[in-house]
């Protein structure tokens, strides 16, 4: 018997118009944490879906423990010992932890036995979880634990994790890594997908790098610098955004005791958010998902009107203004969810340009839309932000995540806002596109706009923010200058300790 757990040989999968995986071959050894690196659209998702039985490859073979392995569906993969934790959780909010786990198992045991096993396994791996709690009440980190424990209960040989840390605080990341190392020491292999190169350097022993569907190389992340890995992914040197010294001006946006009830059963209420944002500055708002980020953006965009005095734009109370009135006044927003919120999936890019640009770009007169001008605006965005698409007539859903994100952010920036609020501007976006988006946000701020970046990516926030504040259960901490903040400070801010406690700690 060899050390190799999973051998992938010549795996190829083509979709109409694109070859997602082109003759991909690599091996995962027993008991290793193997990183899968690549830009968005490099074919990582297709590859792991093939391993997990969600996608049937056009050509190529896989062997698990030396035996040919071709799962027709995920249950076949699971019974062979391959499990996966997805980036987006598939959990039912209204059910409790044990019920959710039972739903994901092929042969669930009796509920009482299951609850006991959940307790055992979760304690054993340092991921405490109460099987009786309702999932809707759990934090993102705890939800991820549900998914991980669901996998662990099936005694996996290979655990696939897709961007697991994007929803975690630094402290939670440490706990997760400890768990993964323990699993590795017990002989479980882990295939780890992430954009965060520093994490990969801390955790993984081997890395396979994909670019445009092909394996372009491998490395030992412990001995390769993040910059070198990024270059292998992108194929060229990565441009790191340059942050000029901020010169701040007048207060552009002022939030005073911004409060709002949760818009739906599993939403978060905003509680007394107070902060001023100056012209020329970037305010970074960190926090674990589900702590009011979406609600804050809805309150800013005007989709969730609040008391007029709670939001002031250049002194004017606008809390109850409608969406397009705010746009006209210079307050623009870009929500987190690209498809379905920031953009309409089946509509063309031209139509999606008109989605927010009608007011400020004068795309309509007497109620009639000037589609030629809308198209010109869309083409301007595509050109200025290097959006890769055959034309402005293509549907938004045909673009890769990173390209659509560039389009969505570009659409707002090109409207020259006085205040721009963005939520998760580089979520799931590849390194070079993320750098371009961050640079554009910095340029916007240095041009005199006030920019609020809500993000769960702390590295990103540290890179571009002038001041940093944390959102916790709908409350915003006192903003602090981003320069000089340590990871511990941030962790405490995210964890809900008040700013003064954070300073004394």
């Amino acid at each position, binding site marked *: 018997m060899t050390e190799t757990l999973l051998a992938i040989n010549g795996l190829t999968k083509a979709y*109409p118009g694109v070859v997602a995986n082109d003759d991909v071959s690599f091996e995962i050894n027993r008991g290793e944490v193997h990183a899968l690196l690549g830009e968005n659209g490099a074919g990582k998702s297709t590859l792991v879906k093939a391993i997990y039985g969600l996608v049937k490859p056009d050509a190529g073979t896989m062997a698990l423990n030396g035996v040919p392995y*071709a799962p*027709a569906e995920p249950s076949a993969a699971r019974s062979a010992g391959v499990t996966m934790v997805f980036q987006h959780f598939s959990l039912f909010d209204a059910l409790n932890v044990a019920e959710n786990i039972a739903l994901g198992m092929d042969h669930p045991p009796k509920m009482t036995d299951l609850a006991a096993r959940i307790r055992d396994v979760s304690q054993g791996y340092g991921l405490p979880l109460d099987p009786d709690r309702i999932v809707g009440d759990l934090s993102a980190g705890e939800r991820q634990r549900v998914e991980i424990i669901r996998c662990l209960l099936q005694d996996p040989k290979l655990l696939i994790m897709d961007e697991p840390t994007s929803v975690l605080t630094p402290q939670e990341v440490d706990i997760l890594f400890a768990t993964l190392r323990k699993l590795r020491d017990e002989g479980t292999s882990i295939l780890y997908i992430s954009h965060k190169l520093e994490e990969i350097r801390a955790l993984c022993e081997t890395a396979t790098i994909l670019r445009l569907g092909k394996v372009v190389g491998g490395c030992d992340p412990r001995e390769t610098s993040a910059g070198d890995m990024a270059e292998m992914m992108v194929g060229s040197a990565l441009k790191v955004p340059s942050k000029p010294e901020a010169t701040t001006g007048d207060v552009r946006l002022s939030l005073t005791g911004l409060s709002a009830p949760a818009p739906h059963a599993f939403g978060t209420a905003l509680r007394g958010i107070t902060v001023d944002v100056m012209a020329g500055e970037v305010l970074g708002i960190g926090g674990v998902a589900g702590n009011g980020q979406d609600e804050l953006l809805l309150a800013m965009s005007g989709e969730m009107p609040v008391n007029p005095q709670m939001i002031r734009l250049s002194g004017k109370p606008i809390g109850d203004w409608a969406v397009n009135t705010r746009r006209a006044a210079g307050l623009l927003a870009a929500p987190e969810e690209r498809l379905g919120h920031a953009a*309409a*999936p089946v509509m063309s890019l031209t139509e999606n340009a*008109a989605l927010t640009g009608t007011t400020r770009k004068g795309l309509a007169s007497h109620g009639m839309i000037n589609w030629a001008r809308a198209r010109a605006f869309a083409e301007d965005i595509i050109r200025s932000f290097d959006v890769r698409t055959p034309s402005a007539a293509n549907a938004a859903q045909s673009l890769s995540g990173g390209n659509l994100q560039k389009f969505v952010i570009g659409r707002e920036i090109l409207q020259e806002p006085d205040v721009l609020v963005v939520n998760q501007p580089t979520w799931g976006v590849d390194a070079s596109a993320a750098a371009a988006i961050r640079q554009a946000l910095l340029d916007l701020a240095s041009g005199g706009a006030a920019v609020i970046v809500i993000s769960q990516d702390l590295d990103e926030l540290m890179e571009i923010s002038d001041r940093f504040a944390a959102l916790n259960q709908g409350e915003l901490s006192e903003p602090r200058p981003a320069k000089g903040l340590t990871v511990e400070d941030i962790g405490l801010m995210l964890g809900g300790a008040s700013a003064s406690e954070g300073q004394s700690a």
Partner: protein
Amino acid sequence: MITLEKRPEPSRGWSLATPLLAVILTVLAGGLVFAALGYDPVATIRAIFYEPIFGQNSFYYLPQLLVKAGPLILIANGLAIGFRAGIWNIGAEGQYIMGAIFAAAAGLAFYPSESFLIWPLMITAGAVGGLLWALIPAILRVKFGTNEILVSLMLVYVAENILSSAAVSWLRNPEGMGFPGSRNLSQWDAASNPEIIAGTGMHWGVAAACIAVILAYVLMARHILGFQIRLAGQSPRAAAFSGVNPARLVLICMGVAGLLAGLAGMFEVTGPARKISIDFNVGYGFTAIIVAFLGRLHPIGILLAGLLMGLTYIGGEVAQQSLGLPLAAIQLFQGMLLFFLLAVDVLTHYRPKRTQRAAS
């Protein structure tokens, strides 16, 4: 094994081809049903599709085609606007009835005046009647979150009861020897809706339907409201982000649909139907739903679908008269049309792909 794979973008070609494919499948399946009922399928299909247009009695049937298609197109255009926005007005039949009653009542209040103002007054009253009837489910949805499908549908039955009470009591013809039904509006010059060109079936309602097609086309293709309607139907959260007010959209879409259905009722009661009677409504409001979908919710498509549907009505009558085909078989045939359209619609969004069955 054949599996379906989602297309990156909906196919334009299939979106145009599926209505034709649906018609072909309906003809095939309908032929089988007619054969099973003991009728010659070829003769039946010929009676439905060929006789009204090319047969020896086509001089009689062709005008009837416009008479049938006119209200269908008018109503379906209004419905399609709401359907595009994800607002499901199923009660056009009721709005059609109320338009007719309002128009007849407004006109008859001035009988036997020959004022030229009566005709525009009746048009306005018909539009208002349909509009008000449609705003009931719209306001209930906006204010209380009720389901507009159920409310609009149930209001059809309310309208039918109002219709029969109008026909037997408060709008009954005082000179009608006690028979139910209102005065004959088409014999009263001030209120009649004659053919614009004699012998063509082209009455004012048909003209209104053509105008509605043009206006709906401009609205959906060019006007910002049309864009908002499409946005709200495809992606409600993106619509909210874009600044669409959903409550306003519900009121507008339901209102427009009701207004057009009311107009259709008005032109019908003053023209082909001649008067308010107990069985005045013949299901145009429901058939228009099929027409709207058969026409892919597109104004031009609805124009063609309305003509096709009108043809199945007329052809159905021909088949009833000449072959003795039961009415239920014709209605089944019309229902199959919508069924097949929705079934083949999957090809617009998915492509079939042949795959080998993987060993598990």
